[in-house]
């Protein structure tokens, strides 16, 4: 899954005939003057300014301002751009036309194993979470389209009457078409409202999760994906994502500020068990990371460098199960190069390193790791005879052999 920010999300909606408020995305306040010149609506309408970042709780953080005239828009944009939130600078804001409305609705399409569910409610905004059981849903099998009667029934069940039933049916059809054709995983409009200017439904927000694996059949996806966990990606995370996108195999990194145990494990399955083991022992995680699929040594070295640079860490866990085909010697060569570089750069002071791994060339790879002790590394190396996650226990309880 991959999240799309509101601006490009609304462009995708427009492509499939879903109305959205007129809007622009800017990265400096200076852009506003020339945009006002070419966008009549910016001179005539009241506007909404929002930080255009993958941030949770924007309203509470003061990153959403409503009912503004153009001068207020300028000062709001100036105030938001560059503002530091949770250690990250706001780099873009979205300015959109304010649509006055009395009622708010909810519409979503969600991927499920056998196909998709269309969700609809005659209420919107924060009321949706609070009244989740009142949200009506209908199922569409994969490869099929929702029927006209099926959608009318859904709209009626959700409480729509009169011409609203037809409006909601058409709108849901278009949202489903967008979801289906754009390889959506989840698409949500909350709120959905009637624009009094033309009496038509308009998506006032766009939550869009696409299937990143389908990128190969969407050459027009010209946007980059945003993070899904309520904050923007850090520079280190972006660097590793960029490396991940162009190598055989994979390297992954997510930073968690304040943790004391850094992870550098192999494999998408084992890495989560390592995270669990650290938490179960009462430790705090400084990151989530993982490499797998026999990545090149340089990519693992780059990941190691980022992991060693995490502030305040006391332990690094180089864990892993018995690999099928990831070459232990080769990937460890990358990790060792990363460790040496970090040490030369004055990092890893007082940091203990814990290693457990098996797989092709395991004996040589583990021996290389052991030899790091001669270079002054505080390193503890275990082989397949030590249970997978026991090194987390050793690290946090000082039970090392």
């Amino acid at each position, binding site marked *: *899954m991959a999240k799309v920010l509101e601006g490009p999300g609304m462009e995708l909606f427009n492509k499939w005939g879903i109305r959205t408020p007129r809007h622009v995305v800017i990265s400096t306040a200076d852009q506003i003057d020339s945009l006002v010149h070419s966008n009549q609506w910016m001179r005539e309408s009241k506007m909404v300014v929002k930080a255009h970042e993958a941030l949770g709780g924007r309203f509470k953080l003061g990153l959403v301002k409503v009912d503004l005239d153009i001068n207020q828009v300028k000062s709001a944009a100036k105030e938001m751009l560059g503002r530091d939130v949770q250690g990250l600078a706001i780099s873009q804001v979205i300015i959109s036309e304010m649509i006055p409305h009395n009622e708010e609705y909810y519409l979503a399409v*969600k*991927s499920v*194993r*056998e196909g998709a569910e269309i969700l609809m409610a005659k209420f919107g905004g924060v009321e949706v979470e609070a009244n*989740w059981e009142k949200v009506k849903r209908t199922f569409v*099998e*994969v*490869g099929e389209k929702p029927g006209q009667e099926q959608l009318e029934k859904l709209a009626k069940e959700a409480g729509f009457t009169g011409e609203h039933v037809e409006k909601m049916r058409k709108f849901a059809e278009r949202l489903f078409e967008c979801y*289906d054709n754009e*390889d959506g*995983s*989840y698409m949500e409009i909350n709120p959905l409202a009637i624009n009094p200017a033309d009496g038509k439904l308009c998506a006032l927000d766009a939550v869009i999760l696409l*299937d990143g*694996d*389908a990128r*190969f*059949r969407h050459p027009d996806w010209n946007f980059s994906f945003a993070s*899904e*966990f*309520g*904050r923007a990606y850090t520079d280190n995370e972006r660097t590793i994502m960029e490396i991940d996108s162009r190598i055989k195999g994979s390297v*992954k990194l*997510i930073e*968690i500020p304040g943790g004391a145990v850094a992870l550098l494990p*192999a*494999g*998408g*399955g*084992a*890495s*989560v*068990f390592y*995270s*669990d*083991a*650290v*938490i*179960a022992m009462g430790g*705090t*995680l400084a990151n*989530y990371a*993982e490499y*797998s*699929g026999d990545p090149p040594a340089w990519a693992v070295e780059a990941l190691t460098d980022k992991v060693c640079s995490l502030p305040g860490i006391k332990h690094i866990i180089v864990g*892993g*199960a*018995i*690999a*099928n*085909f*990831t070459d232990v010697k080769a990937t460890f060569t990358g990790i060792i190069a990363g460790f040496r570089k970090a040490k030369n750069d004055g990092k890893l002071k007082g940091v203990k390193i814990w290693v457990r791994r*098996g*797989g*092709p060339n395991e004996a040589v790879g583990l021996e290389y790791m052991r030899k790091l002790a001669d270079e002054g590394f505080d390193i503890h190396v275990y082989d*397949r005879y030590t*249970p*997978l*996650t*026991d090194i987390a226990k050793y690290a946090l309880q000082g039970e090392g052999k």
Partner: protein
Amino acid sequence: MSIIADENTRVVVMGGVAGVNAAKRMAEFCYLSHLPYNVTAFVYPPDAGKTAEIPFGSQFLAVPIYAKLKEATDNHPETNTALVYIGANRAYQGSLEALENEKINFVSMITEGVPEKDAKLLIKHAKRLGKVLNGPSSIGVLSAGKCRLGVIGGEYNNLKLSKLYRPGSFGVITKSGGLSNEIMWLVSQFADGVTTTIGVGGDAYPVTDFVTYLDLFEKDPDTKAVVIVGEMGGNLEEAAAVWYEAKPRRIKLIGIASGFCQEHLPKGMKFGHAGAKEGMHGEGSARAKSERLKKAGAIVPPTFGDLGPTIRKVYEDLKATGQIKAVKDIPAAELPELPRKVEEVISAGDVVVQPLFKTTISDDRGDEPLYCGYPASDLIEKGYDITHIIGLLWNKKLVSDKEAEVIKRILMLAADHGPCVSGAFATILAACAGIGLSQSVAAGLIMIGPRFGGAVTDAAKYFRFGLRNYPNDIPGFLAHMKKEVGPVPGIGHRVKSLKNPDKRVEVLKKTVRDLALRTPTLDYALAVEAITTTKKDNLILNVDGCMACVLVDLGFPEESLNGFFILARTIGMIGHWTDQKREGGKLIRLYNYLVNFAVPRRKEVPDRK
């Protein structure tokens, strides 16, 4: 017994390099388990009609490659299983083709990064066709002692350590490729090993869920317990729990799910597997899954670290109740070793191989070429140039700056001599006939011999002979040459003479004088010239002779000297070929008037006798 894959499984592998690599791993397993090889064919259109070479012990098997799956199954009707190693953008079509093939009853999809919509459509097709499709992103399926599909089980040594050459009593189902090996290892250490292990893949929507395999395990009398390794996200574990409690089950179920850390991590954080994502409204957490499995009667160890002891406990209980009989292990010494590659045996010092030939000048086995031991990049960084490389490769000596300057000037002087000389002409003739660069230059180089540019080596040889045997007796040397050899190589020119000296010779002589190099051979040759020019003024020391003397005075071996002419003149020949190409040189046919047709005039052919 086993499920999904056994000794009767015959496999077609769809896809290129990765498929062939997996097929090699499968051959290792068959070899270890004393089974015949189970891959019948490959489907890979770019290589259709060829065969893939698969090492099997010390043999090499040639497995045919087809363009279409149907051709493969028509030609190998025993095939009943397909492994899909096709790239993500075409994997859907390939897997559908495999599902629809009537000979194939099991398909395992190894491809990673398959779009969710494609996977969901495949779920529908598999259901419609009543077949099992495993994956996507599956590491494979392994039935101990019977069949390996894919790279599951890892390297050869791990197959032995995890006792995968003989069946045990535990089934294993994992989403993670890496953990499948770990669990098989645990089961071999804490119990008697596996019956079948299935990697279902870590995607959000694996085509076949845990329940499909649990049903099959329940029906397999040799499987006494099953270990399922789950993770947060999705509902495969919950479905397994529902299945397990639905009625009394024969198999023991051990279940573990990862993702408890989620409670302490940023909301919505994505883990290694696409399937391991947070449920929209709290469902699918590791805690919820573990509780659900426990409630259904499964044994759920508190942490991954407790999994091994839990497996041991289940195994001991099953043994105590007589449901499992002790398996006899094969001693390690009786298991076949994979034949080692000759490189490995040599580096271990176990054999000596008589080399085919010897080299003393260059070595590129490391990260860059070494010229007589000097890394090329170091030579460049320290300011050496091509003349030093010539010195190293032709004479194994790092020449001095003065010597390098002489070599450079010789190459410059000999680089070309116009289009009419035999070498350049042959190159041009070939270029105009449409022949490629290397062949055209080779045609020119073939012309180099005793009459064209090839006097360098001979001149050196005879001037050195004279210097050694007739140091102070040039008339004696000339008499010897006249009697035994003929004209002195390096002396004489068709157009140049004392009055019309060869500029190139003048430059070369000046170079060595200016650099104050010691030139005994050149001095001797000039003394010879002083005598020969008294007889005829074009019997001068020519450029070949001068080059020869200078180069032997620099210490180059005689046999290398024609090389200077070949190397230098190659520059000109490449120029002539390029020139003809650029100018669109037309095909050359010799004019009739340039030939004296000294053949009999036309006459009648007599009848055959």
